[in-house]
C-alpha cells in the first residue's frame, strides 16, 4: 500500500472547515471593502462547496474533490500575491504547496509543483521580491522528504516481508530461502525432507472469467485449507502465480503421499461460489541421495513448470 487514503470522516471535516475558512475570507473582504478582490473568492467558495458535495457523494474518484480544493487554494493565493503583493505575507505562498503534498501522491504532487514553478517565478518578478523564490524551492524540497521516507519504508517492508502480498503463504524468494535452510537442516541433522508441488489449474480461468476477487478467494481457500491440515512447521509458499510448494520436514515418501491424499480429499470438499469445486494437482517430490541443493531446486522448478503446462495427472 503505497498511498494509504486519509479517512473519509477526517476528509469531510477538512472540506467543511476549508469551506468555512473560504466563506470567512470572502465575508471579511466584503466587510473591509476590497470589492475588486471579492469576486474570485466568492466564486471559489462555490467551488469549495461543490468539492464538499462531491466528496460526500458516492462513486466519485476521491482525488477529484481534493484537486478542486487544491485549485481553489492556488487561485486564492495567486490572486492575493498578484493583486496586493505588498499586503500579502510571502508566508502564504507555501500553503498550497504543503496542501498538495498531503492531498496527492508524491510523484503527481512533485510534478504539479514543478510545473507551477514558472508561474511562481512570474508572480514574483511582478512583485519584485525574488528572495521568496528560494524559500518556495526549499520548502518544496523539505516537504517531499517525508514522502520519500514513506516510499523507502514501504520498499523495505516489501523486501523483508517473508509473506506473499496476496495470500497467507511465503513469497517466492522467502520460500526458496526457507527450503534451502530446511535442506541443510535435513542433511546435517539426518532427517528426511519432502516437498509437495500444488498447482491450481483453475487460477487463470478464474481470473479471466470472474476477475481478481475470484482469484484471491481461490488462493485464500487453498492457504487456509493447507495451513489447517498441516503441522505447524510445514512451510507453505507460493512458487509462482498458480503453483505452491509445501515443504514437509522430517517426512518420508510414504508420509508425503499420505499428506497428498489427505490434502486432495480435503481440498475437493471445498466448493467456491464462482469456480465450483476446488481442483488441485498435487505431486510429491523428494531430494535424491546426496543431491546438491541447486540441482534439487532446479528439478523442482522444472517439475512445477511441467505440471503447470501439462494436463492434470493423477
Amino acid at each position, binding site marked *: *500500500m503505497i498511498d*494509504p487514503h*486519509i*479517512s473519509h470522516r*477526517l476528509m469531510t471535516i*477538512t472540506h467543511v472547515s476549508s469551506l468555512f*475558512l473560504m466563506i470567512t*475570507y470572502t465575508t471579511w473582504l466584503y466587510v473591509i471593502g476590497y470589492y475588486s478582490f471579492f469576486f474570485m473568492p466568492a466564486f471559489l467558495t462555490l467551488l469549495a462547496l461543490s468539492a464538499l458535495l462531491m466528496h460526500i457523494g458516492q462513486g466519485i474518484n476521491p482525488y477529484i474533490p481534493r484537486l478542486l480544493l487544491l485549485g481553489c487554494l492556488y487561485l486564492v493565493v495567486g490572486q492575493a500575491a498578484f493583486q496586493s503583493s505588498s499586503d500579502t*505575507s*510571502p*508566508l*502564504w*505562498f*507555501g*500553503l498550497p504547496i*504543503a*496542501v498538495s*503534498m*498531503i492531498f496527492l501522491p508524491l510523484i503527481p504532487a512533485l510534478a504539479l509543483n514543478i510545473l507551477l514553478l514558472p508561474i511562481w517565478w512570474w508572480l514574483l518578478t511582478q512583485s519584485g521580491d525574488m*528572495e*521568496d523564490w*528560494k*524559500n*518556495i*524551492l*526549499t*520548502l518544496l*524540497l*523539505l*516537504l517531499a*522528504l*517525508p*514522502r*520519500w*521516507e*514513506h*516510499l*523507502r*519504508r*514501504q*520498499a*523495505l*517492508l516489501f*523486501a*523483508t*516481508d*517473508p*509473506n506473499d502480498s496476496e495470500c497467507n503463504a511465503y513469497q517466492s524468494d522467502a520460500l526458496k530461502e526457507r527450503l*534451502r*535452510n*530446511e535442506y*541443510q*537442516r535435513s542433511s*546435517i*541433522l*539426518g532427517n528426511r525432507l519432502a516437498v509437495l508441488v500444488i498447482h491450481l489449474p483453475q487460477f487463470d480461468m478464474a481470473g479471466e472469467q470472474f476477475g481478481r476477487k475470484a482469484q484471491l478467494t481461490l488462493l485464500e481457500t487453498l492457504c487456509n485449507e493447507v495451513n489447517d491440515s498441516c503441522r*505447524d*512447521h510445514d512451510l507453505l509458499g507460493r512458487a509462482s502465480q498458480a503453483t505452491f510448494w509445501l515443504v514437509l*520436514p*522430517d517426512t518420508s515418501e510414504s508420509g508425503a503421499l499420505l499428506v497428498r491424499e489427505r490434502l486432495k480429499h480435503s481440498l475437493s470438499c471445498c466448493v467456491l461460489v464462482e469456480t465450483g469445486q476446488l481442483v488441485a494437482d498435487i505431486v510429491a517430490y523428494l531430494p535424491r541421495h546426496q543431491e546438491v541443493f541447486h540441482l534439487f531446486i532446479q528439478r523442482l522448478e522444472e517439475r512445477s513448470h511441467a505440471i503447470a503446462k501439462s494436463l492434470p495427472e493423477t
Partner: protein
Amino acid sequence: MRNKYKVNMLRANLLAAAVGLALFTPESTLDALVVVWVAIGWLFTTALLLDFSHRRTINIPWQLIPGALITALLATMPESSSMLIWAWVAVFMLPQSNYVIALNALLAAISLFLLAPYLPFPDQWLMFAALLMMCVLSVARARQLNTINGAIRQRAQLVPGMRIWAKEQLARDLSREQTRCKREGIHAELIILQVKRHQLWHTAHRLCQTTYHFENVYRLNSRMLATLTLSRSSSEGLKRRQHLIQTISDKSACHYIEISDIEITELNLDNFIKEKQALFPLESS
C-alpha cells in the same frame, strides 16, 4: 534495484534540501548562520547514514531534531524564513510515537508564537487554522502507515537478506521448535548474548556467519541477541556452544537454556530476558 533507486532518490532529495537551506546563509546574522549550518549538517549526515534496513528506525525519537531545527530557524530569522512554518507539515508526516508528537506539537506552537508578531491579526488566525488542519491530516496519515507497517515489522527480517529477526518471531519459533525437536529427537538450545550497544549489529552478523542457515538470530533489545542452535546430541550441543563463544569475542555476557526446559505456556519473553536465574551462565574458556 528498484529499492536502491528509492533510497537514492531520498538521498538526492536530502542533499538538494541541504543546498536549498544553504541559499539562506548570505543574509543571516551570526546565530541564524549557526542554526542554518547545523540544519545543513543534519541533512547531510542523514543522507550519508541512510541505509536499506530496519536498524535505525527503532525507538530513537530522532523526529524531534527536525522539529527543533525548524523552531530555531524561525526564531533566528522570523522574517526571511517565515515560509518554513509549513515545513511542520513534513515533520508531522514522519511516523513517530505519541510523546514525540506531543513534544513536536509544543514546538510547533512555540514557532507560531514566534511568527505571530510579524503578521497582521487575521493572518495569524488563518495560519493557525490551516496549520492545525494540515498537521492533523499528516498525523492521521502517518499513524495509518504505522499500523500497517507494525504488523509486518514483527515478522520481517531486520536486514534484507540476513537471518536476523524481531523478538516477536522468537516467541513463535520457540514453541514451534519445541514440538519439532521433541518429535525429531534433536537437542536445541537458546543462547542469549549480551553485547555492547554499538557492537550489536556487528555481532549479529558474526552470529549469522557462525551458525547454520537453519538457525536464526534474534534481536531482543538494543543490547541483547539470541540464537537457537540445533544439534544431534547434547554433547555436540556443548561443542557448538563452546565454538560459538570462542568465535564471538566481543560479548560481555552470555547465557543458555535448553529449550525443552522452557515453559512455553507461561512464557513472557520480556520477563524471561530480565530474570537471569532461569538461564545458565556460560563461561568462556
